């Protein structure tokens, strides 16, 4: 049961397809009945909204009015909107800083607690604690830590969140703090599967710790790291809770992310069509990056 990524389900092979009338048996009805509640919820609350979300991006739709088809107007407006570009820039910078830092932290700590020793379980538990803590709580306390009254603020003599240059690094630090335990566990699970014999053989061949890591362990970790990279990219593209609570996108929009923009347009100005267009942009961006990651991963293999 320790697979790192959901394995795609396959229809069970080897069984010849049964005659169609067998489906009408009570068993088939029952199967349908068992699936139906979830499936209907799914259609209404996930599938439907996803379709409508894409469609809505071609409409002008605000509170109290009926939707009006405007073709690509929302997207044209988006490309002209300096706020969109600012949000995109912030989101990309955040991701570029967050991704390597969080994966490196996860990897480093996973390697440190890899072998069991007295206390290793305790360390693992401690490192996982931030993962289960709500981002709102994290944001609340880190706001103080970074303020000019808090220790991190005192360190630089000013509030991080008031600085246009330090606000994103501050948000990255909180994100890494809250997520590295998750990545650590994913990597640890994979590390358990690295055959001991491989490493021992390398040791006998006189390979030092770095060489063993680089040539034996790291190649084995590749799938787990890829999985993490995809998950963490998605997470950081969608960063919202922290920004909403800690900075509201400020100061002067220097931490204004795409989801903040979507939230503002959707629920501040109730410009629902434009907000949907921003949602579509986010979706396209996510797909695009996932694709790039897949290509890179494939090539380095």
């Amino acid at each position, binding site marked *: 049961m320790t697979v790192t990524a959901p394995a795609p389900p396959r229809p069970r092979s080897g069984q010849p397809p049964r005659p169609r009338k067998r489906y009408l048996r009570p068993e088939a009805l029952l199967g349908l009945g068992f699936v139906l509640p979830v499936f209907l919820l799914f259609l*209404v609350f996930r599938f439907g909204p996803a379709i409508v979300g894409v469609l809505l991006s071609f409409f002008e739709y605000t509170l109290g009015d009926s939707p009006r088809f405007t073709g690509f107007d929302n997207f044209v407006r988006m490309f002209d909107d300096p706020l969109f570009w600012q949000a995109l820039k912030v989101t990309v910078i955040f991701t570029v800083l967050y991704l390597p830092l969080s994966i490196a932290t996860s990897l480093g700590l996973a390697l440190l607690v890899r072998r069991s020793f007295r206390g290793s379980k305790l360390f693992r538990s401690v490192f996982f*604690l931030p993962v289960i803590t709500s981002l709102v709580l994290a944001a609340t306390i880190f706001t103080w830590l970074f303020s000019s009254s808090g220790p991190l603020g005192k360190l630089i003599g000013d509030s991080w969140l008031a600085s246009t240059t330090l606000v994103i690094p501050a948000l990255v630090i909180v994100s890494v703090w809250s997520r590295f335990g998750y990545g650590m566990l994913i990597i640890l699970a994979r590390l358990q599967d690295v055959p001991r014999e491989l490493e021992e053989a390398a040791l006998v061949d006189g390979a030092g710790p770095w060489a063993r890591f680089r040539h034996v362990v790291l190649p084995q970790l590749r799938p787990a790291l890829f999985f993490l990279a995809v998950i963490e990219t998605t997470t950081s593209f969608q960063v919202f809770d922290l920004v909403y609570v800690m900075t509201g996108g400020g100061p002067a929009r220097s931490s204004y992310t795409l989801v903040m923009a979507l939230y503002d347009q*959707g629920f501040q100005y109730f410009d629902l069509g434009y907000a949907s267009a921003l949602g579509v942009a986010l979706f396209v961006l996510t797909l695009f990056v996932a694709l790039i990651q897949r290509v890179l991963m494939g090539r380095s293999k």
Partner: protein
Amino acid sequence: MTNALRPRLGGKILRGVFLAVASVITIFPFYAMIVLSLKPVAAVEFPRSLVPWPIDTSSYDRVLGGGDIPLWTLNTLIYSVVSVVLVLLLSSLAGYAFAKKRFPGKETMFWSFLAMVMVPYHVTLIPLFVLIAEAGGVDTYWGLIVPTLANAQAVFLMRQFIGTLPDELFEAAKIDGASEWRIFATIVLPLCKPILATLGLFVFLWHWNDFLWPLLVGKSTDMRTLTVGIAALQEENVPLNVVLAGATIAFVPIFAAYLVGQRYLTEGVTMSGIKG
């Protein structure tokens, strides 16, 4: 032989130091949260504010005595617990059918579930909100809960797990004349206990910590969850010690759940990629 890869003494000490430092950094925000919540209103200046003594519990008096926090805790509990029960029920039923039943449209349904995991939540957010708003779900518990019940990952996980159970178990019961419903209730569910515990914990955590959806749906002060309420307190310039007292209160049940169910949680993370 097995000791060959063990670090030497120097390495062990270095590892210990690294881990200790990392632990302190990890724990420090929690420490700060609790200590600051026990300070008087204006005492926020570091480092004095992080000395634990003397303790001042006025923030907790304010938070627990008639404030909104007890109500918000109740809301959060309802949101989390009802969702957990319903998600477990719905997804184990569906998971059982997907794993062990044959019926028309099965593959299509299953694949559409999986495909939707790829679509970011935020694409669906606006229409979902309009839908719930039109249906009168703003500021209601059902508006909060019902849209979150369509949990594709939960269905997937249940299908995976039930798929590993041997068919003979069910066949025997069927020969004995047990109804399908009975088989589900007396054979499938008990066998699923470990996975239900894992899944239940995740769904609980996810709902307890959820922010964006309750922020949209729970608009009145009375319908806020803890996360939304604490964010609002901060916005309304409530003194830091009071906000952090609220945060500490919100943290306690999560911490308790963690202590009890840690094993299930860590297994759950490694089993699949459920987001924490």
